[in-house]
């Protein structure tokens, strides 16, 4: 792994009036690393994810990102145009509900190709073959390239959403409960797929989940949040096998054993 972090978060806080969304969170994310943010509903993990992915301006703190030229750049200091450009080229965002991240009214091929067209590709044949290639990589039959996502199952939609995000070869992908609402066998295949892509592409991922099994399978490191604070962080295996905080111990012991 590189010495320079890809993303550097310092003292990020978000208050909703008197309510704490998240408070004084700091961490570094390195290239190729997968970080899981876990915690129960309302613990502030989605607020934190939105703050660092420029979807929600934090009350305090800075988020710095290593641009492609290696320079660290404060996300909230750069212009909106540059930020949006970053969002649709160098980053991906996988929503819990695929309908939020896909255009349900246009074909799967166009969904995958949209980012390519947004960065200026104007050759229909190339866009289509690249879309087909990505559909294959996320295990969707290429024959369905002209079908709309509304005709897809939940698992297929989620895989399509991943393809749509990865087509511009982003370096950082945010995922908000990517397996939420999927049944376990579909979950397992999706996680397998993501693991494969991380290994192939050297992606960095920040994944928010309440599912500790997802965190264990995907992530290298994890942070445990409670009431807006990070109460424990460390290597995933270490945190899950030997939790130190009482709350983390509670979470780990709450996993259903089959």
């Amino acid at each position: 792994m590189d010495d320079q972090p890809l993303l550097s978060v310092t003292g990020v806080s978000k208050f909703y009036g008197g309510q704490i969304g998240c408070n004084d969170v700091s961490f570094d994310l390195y290239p190729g690393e997968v970080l899981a943010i876990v915690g129960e509903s309302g613990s502030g993990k989605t607020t934190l994810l939105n703050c660092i992915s420029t979807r929600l301006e934090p009350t305090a703190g800075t988020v710095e990102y290593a641009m492609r030229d290696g320079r660290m750049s404060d996300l909230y200091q750069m212009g909106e145009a540059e930020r949006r450009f970053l969002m649709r080229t160098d980053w991906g965002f996988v929503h819990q509900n695929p309908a939020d991240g896909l255009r349900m009214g246009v074909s799967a091929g166009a969904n995958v190709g949209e980012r390519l067209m947004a960065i200026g590709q104007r050759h229909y044949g190339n866009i289509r073959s690249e879309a087909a290639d990505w559909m294959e990589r996320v295990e969707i039959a290429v024959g369905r390239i002209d079908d709309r996502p509304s005709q897809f199952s939940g698992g297929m939609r989620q895989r399509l959403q991943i393809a749509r995000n990865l087509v511009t070869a982003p370096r950082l992908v945010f995922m908000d409960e990517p397996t939420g609402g999927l049944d376990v066998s579909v979950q397992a295949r999706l996680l397998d797929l993501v693991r494969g892509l991380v290994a192939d592409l050297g992606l960095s991922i920040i994944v928010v989940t309440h599912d500790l099994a997802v965190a264990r399978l995907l992530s290298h490191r994890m942070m445990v949040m409670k009431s807006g604070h990070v109460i424990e962080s460390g290597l995933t295996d270490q945190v899950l096998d030997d939790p130190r905080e009482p709350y983390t111990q509670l979470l780990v012991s709450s996993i259903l054993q089959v």
Partner: protein
Amino acid sequence: MSGHYNFAYLDEQTKRMIRRAILKAIAIPGYQVPFASREMPMPYGWGTGGVQVTAAILGANDVLKMIDQGSDDTTNAVALRGFFEKTAGVATTTRTEDATVIQTRHRIPEMTLQEHQVLVYQVPIPEPLRFLEPRETETRKMHAMEEYGLMHVKLYEDIATHGHIATTYAYPVKVMGRYVMDPSPTPKFDNPKMDRMAALQLYGAGREKRIYAIPPFTDVVSLDFEDHPFDVQEWPDTACALCGAEGVYFDEVITDDHGGRMFCCSDSDYCEMRRAAGHIGDQTRFTEAAE
């Protein structure tokens, strides 16, 4: 009757407001300028935007021409021409070359327009991104940031579904290399005429409260793909049944219940002019032979 109305129906303050919007629109070619669209004595969708723009730019010496689907004698054209004859008392004409202000729905005249002329379009939906992105806040941002990838998504969908770009009207264009614009519901056949046109082109959308413009001699490029370039409709081996014109935009007219049909110029003035100059088409020839 015209004594009962202010010149061209609208009050002077409203006309000023619209003129300010028009000036801004000309200064930023292709940008949609919001304006305080008024209630007009006709329903939305009948050209209230175009009528307000025309009312704001009309002077006592102007000669007005009204086109509806290329024709001067269809309902909308007749009604709006009558409206301005009554409220402004200006001279009207059906001849393209005599007009100084031409208000149109759908068509650009076949005859090349000149520098002293203004073409006013009636626009139903000014936002080219609307059917792909329903949020106005978002489409405005996309225009501001020049994020036009979505526009090509629509064209991509066309090719994926139909094998070619099937958009035949309201075909999106890029104006002066910056704003993507919807050229009202004109057929794409007319898109090339917009490019570097000598006349000023003004667009008014009454219900949506937007005005936009293309100044004279401005570059207007129709969007396309490298491997699916923009092209216009063609009618091979077809000539106007009345005047024999080729390579113009045709109307298909059903003539009987047995599959009989004829093609004739959609631009009625162009057709009349050619016939006056002695050109004849097949139908005219047969009719004359029968007599």
